[in-house]
């Protein structure tokens, strides 16, 4: 029990130290860049997430109804995923540009 308590105190101290360090060397521009990068990727992931979910759901339904056409449906599904995913990936590239460049 005391071991756990010591560990908890140590964690709290470590987090506090880290917070101090973050406060001291925080460059406002990099903080703004990082937070907007997070928002950019999060927003860019919403649409493709819904789209891919809907697409794969419909493809599963089609395969369940017509198992003999599963191969064709799978190819078309991957194509659709590739096109839908492009938006999320462009969001990811924007994330990289904002965060690191």
């Amino acid at each position, binding site marked *: 029990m005391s071991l756990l308590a010591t*560990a908890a105190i*140590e*964690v709290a101290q*470590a*987090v506090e130290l*880290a917070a101090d*360090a*973050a406060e001291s060397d925080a460059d406002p521009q990099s903080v703004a860049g990082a937070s907007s990068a997070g928002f950019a990727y999060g927003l860019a992931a919403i649409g493709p997430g819904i789209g891919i979910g809907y697409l794969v759901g419909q493809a599963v339904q089609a395969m369940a109804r017509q198992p003999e056409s599963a191969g*064709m449906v799978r*190819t078309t599904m*991957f*194509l659709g*995923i*590739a*096109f839908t*995913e*492009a938006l999320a*990936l*462009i969001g*990811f*590239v924007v994330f*990289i540009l904002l*965060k*690191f460049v």
Partner: protein
Amino acid sequence: MIAQVQFPPIDNIVNWEPYFGEGEFFQFDKVSLIMLLGLLIPMGIFLLGGAGKAMVPSGLQSVAEGSVNFIMDIINQTIGHDGKKYLPLLMSFFWFILIGNITEVIPTFQMPANARMGSPLVLALIAFFFSIGAGIKKHGLKYFTNTVVVPGLPTALHFLVIPIEILSNFFIKPFSHAVRLFANMLAGHILLVTFGVLCIAVFSATPLLLALPFSFLGLVGLTGFEVMVAFLQAYIFTLLAGVYIGSALADDH
């Protein structure tokens, strides 16, 4: 920086010290080595695998024949049954990208060559110009009007649709073709680096040692996931190259 977790800057995880020729045209670093392997390994597989002509293939021969079957399936689904002459191009795409991707999870490499924009960009441009060339060879200059003019629209709408079609066919298509591969591999690489850094940081910070099994399991699981992504991205790039060539050859647009 949270509790001594220091993520390395992005330059440190995608740039490597050149082995020789620093700053020259022939600078040779880890990415160049992986690309060279992407040339040599498929050559070895097909030269050695094609040497023995056993009726029941085994070893390298089954790898070679299996990948030919795999690419022929892609061609049949996208270009059609007369697309056999595009087999070498798509086969080279598939093997080069697969080897560039799979080095992401191979120890001592730990770097996908396709996480640098150069390689996907050149591959996408090759596919793009190849599809244009195939279209011009089949339809002549009518290929361009076929591509950008959507038949059966009212005249006024053409002013709106033709610029959109030009933009989407000649700019967005090759761009997204390249970015899809690049961003997937870079994202996977950063993910693995993040979990690796987390493991090391947690290991050195005594109070957080309890979290080590979780981050380690996360690293192992994501490595398996990245193997799947490496195959899937090589497949999707080849499939899309086939689709672009197929749509350039199609008569009904």
